[in-house]
């Protein structure tokens, strides 16, 4: 029998970006919020020894312990799904701040096209442009409607950047100027300008200068130390929930964080949630936390999994296309880039910052004509200098063996003489790409693991090859590259090499309960006091990192929760 605690206004499941933003916005308005976080507490002081590639980048210090919980994966329903036994394709965050701690800080806004992708594609190319099974849909919100929330996220995080000449309209400039520009970025800017493309500095949460945000939180400037992605920031320069929104919520005295509290069920009466059940992982005790409003703010997989395990919402059925929970799982098409090897130039590749980059959107979204192309959408093409560490960076030109004397010489020589231009491709949803509960494999509590059914499609292969060619043209124009290698070929989706922690979908937003799980306040159509916040709400994934858009949606959801709480109930849309 679970211990039952006194009721609170709001319970937040997972305290990363989503949970932190919701908690700060709600507690500022006087609501009491309990944040349940399965992992441990984190603070800036924890990163004293953070410049340790082995511990953080290769032994995954900050990531979820897979011995306790993982996911299973299959390429299609006829294949047996098997557990991801060790890390590869993506890295699952855990602990206070969640994935918001180990991100790079690349903070883009999705394009206006993204939010109305179905309508706009039909408008320009007709419905026949969609291949069989592609289930793209409009998001139920426009870019213009979401713009103020993008701005709030950027002001809070102190994003450093300059206007994207091909992006949506901005109501305000970025709060801090762009990052410093190393030689490689200058080369990219000059080359792309010469090609009549539109380069701009990558919007960065690494902070180009000291900044005090509208909540009064002050942070120091980035030092370009080169340890960002997979690491926590020892300066608090990289915006993460622990150094921004969480302290704001705590200061109100209305936010209680319970770490080591693993939420396992949403409790409900079929129409509304009554609270959540969680296990205190330090004692094994099951505890019931009643609440007026339940907000799921964990990662994509656990948002979806909790709903399915709790029998809340209608599970998606890929055979009929009916149901919504688990629908439109998407990823990122990362293959499709070009590498240049330079004989007579060296670069300080070890220095950098997670979001130090120069980028173009000429081949992203619908910024270029797709009439004669066999795919829709595109990719953000960029050069970035995130800081290359020595174990993970041993590129050698094709034909050089992977070990031995020749490898040693080439890997050392080209460590400082290699630049790459990469494409971060959008990923469209398909009817047979989805999330459901695995029938066989269990987590440490005996609950079913999330099962991913996903593979790359012809759409993805065409997109990757097209963008790879564009990357090749740019690196060629960047000059002096004596050897250029273009990676055009996208194979089957493989869970073993790292690609990107940009998993999306599963609890998608939209304008109709028939095709979506949540409305444009991320409120569940089928349970009005449940809000599901995260990239789980994306009906497809764009050619960008997701956090900026996810952050904007979190502010939008916070506003919806406040409205819901004041109005005393009902669907907001």
């Amino acid at each position: 029998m679970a211990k039952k605690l006194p009721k609170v206004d709001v319970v937040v499941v997972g305290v990363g970006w989503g949970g932190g933003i919701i908690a700060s916005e709600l507690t500022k308005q006087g609501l009491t919020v309990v944040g349940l976080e399965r992992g441990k507490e984190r603070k800036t002081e924890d990163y004293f020894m953070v410049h340790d590639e082995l511990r953080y980048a290769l032994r995954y210090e900050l990531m979820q312990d897979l011995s306790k919980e993982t996911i299973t994966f299959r390429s299609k329903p006829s294949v047996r799904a098997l557990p991801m036994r060790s890390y590869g394709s993506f890295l699952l965050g855990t602990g206070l701040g969640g994935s918001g701690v180990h991100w790079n800080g690349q903070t883009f806004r999705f394009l206006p096209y993204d939010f109305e992708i179905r309508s706009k594609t039909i408008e320009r190319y007709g419905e026949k442009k969609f291949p069989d099974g592609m289930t793209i849909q409009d998001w139920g919100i426009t870019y213009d409607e979401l713009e103020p929330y993008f701005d709030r996220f950027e002001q809070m995080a102190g994003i450093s950047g300059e206007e994207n000449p091909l992006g949506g309209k901005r109501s305000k400039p970025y709060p801090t100027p762009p990052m410093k520009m190393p030689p490689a970025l200058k080369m990219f800017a000059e080359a792309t300008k010469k090609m009549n493309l539109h380069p701009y500095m990558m919007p960065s949460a690494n902070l180009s200068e000291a900044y005090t945000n509208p909540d009064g939180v002050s942070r120091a400037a980035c030092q370009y130390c080169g340890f960002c992605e997979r690491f926590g920031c020892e300066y608090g320069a990289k915006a993460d929930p622990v150094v921004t929104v969480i302290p704001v919520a705590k200061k109100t005295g209305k936010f209680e964080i319970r770490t080591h509290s693993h939420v396992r069920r949403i409790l409900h009466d079929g129409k509304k949630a009554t609270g959540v059940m969680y296990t205190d992982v330090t004692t094994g005790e099951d505890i019931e936390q009643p609440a007026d409003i339940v907000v799921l703010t964990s990662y994509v997989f656990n948002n979806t999994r909790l709903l399915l395990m709790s029998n809340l919402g209608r599970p998606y059925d890929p055979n009929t296309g009916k149901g919504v929970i688990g629908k439109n799982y998407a990823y990122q098409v990362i293959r499709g880039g070009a590498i240049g090897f330079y004989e007579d130039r060296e670069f300080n590749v070890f220095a950098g910052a997670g979001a130090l980059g120069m980028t173009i959107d000429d081949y992203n979204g619908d910024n270029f004509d797709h009439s004669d192309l066999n795919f829709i959408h595109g990719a953000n093409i960029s050069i970035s200098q995130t800081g290359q560490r020595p174990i993970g960076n041993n590129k050698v030109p094709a034909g050089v063996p992977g070990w031995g004397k020749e490898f040693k010489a080439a890997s050392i020589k080209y460590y400082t003489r290699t630049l790459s231009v990469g494409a971060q491709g959008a990923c469209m949803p398909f009817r047979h790409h989805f999330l459901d509960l695995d029938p066989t494999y269990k987590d440490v509590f005996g609950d079913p693991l999330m099962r991913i059914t996903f593979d790359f499609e012809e759409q993805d292969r065409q997109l990757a090859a097209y963008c790879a060619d564009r990357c090749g043209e740019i690196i060629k124009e960047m000059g002096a590259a004596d050897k250029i290698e273009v990676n055009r070929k996208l194979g089957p989706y493989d869970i073993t090499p790292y690609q990107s922690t940009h998993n999306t979908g599963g609890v998608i937003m939209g304008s109709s309960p028939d095709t979506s799980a949540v409305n444009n306040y991320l409120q569940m159509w089928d349970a009005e006091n449940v809000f599901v916040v995260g990239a789980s709400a994306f009906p497809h994934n764009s050619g960008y990192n997701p956090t900026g858009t996810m952050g904007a949606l979190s502010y939008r959801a916070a506003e919806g929760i406040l409205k819901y709480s004041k109005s005393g109930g009902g669907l907001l849309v």
Partner: protein
Amino acid sequence: MLEQHEKQDQPVSRRNFLKNSGLVLGGLVVGGVAGSLLRTQQGPQQPGAATAPAADFNQALMYFTGEQFRVIEAACERIFPEDELGPGAKALGAAYFIDHQLAGEWGFNARDYMQGPFYPGEATQGYQGRLKRREIFDIGIQEMNNYSNSLEGKKFYELTPEQQDTVLKAFETDEVKLTTISASAFFAMLRATTLEGVYSDPLYGGNKNMDGWRMKSFPGNQMAYTQIIEQEGLAKMEPLSLRDHQHG
């Protein structure tokens, strides 16, 4: 020509770093780690401590038998050999690094999902075996000796370097047929851990004296690169290790 910056690119001293980096906002130190650096003081050197060549107490075995260690040390050295550029994996202590890694949680796959049922999967589904990394090494090392014996009637570490390469290539390409483990997967793990031993912080037992980093012009654990981030050409710096962070 690119080396001309060498002189001015000395690693940033901690005091200068704090002064220059904008970490102090109106007298308030922002960021806990940087704050604790402010309090750091170098202790006085013990008389005589600097002159006595210290034994490397880290170079003792936690997991391997002596026989296993000899095989791994010889194999690492072929993967990353000593040459005119500098030391190889052996001198850098990569075999000790691997030994120490296998002794700990990584060797036990402590943070991997190791529950059954076990089925052979597709390559895109990743490793699906029930063996732990230390068990894979045990088998792989034994098989390297077996294969060497079948070719030359000798242990792996008794072969000439060229013969050792032949054996390693046979593992890399699955020319060696093993029933318990994948020869190529074992080789990939051996290669990856060798590079880890060459380039990880010396605190783990490899990258001795930071010479792996020095060869590669990787400056290790530097507090900041604001001073060189916009600079053309390679900034040569003497590397620093995590030990340079005083944590008392």
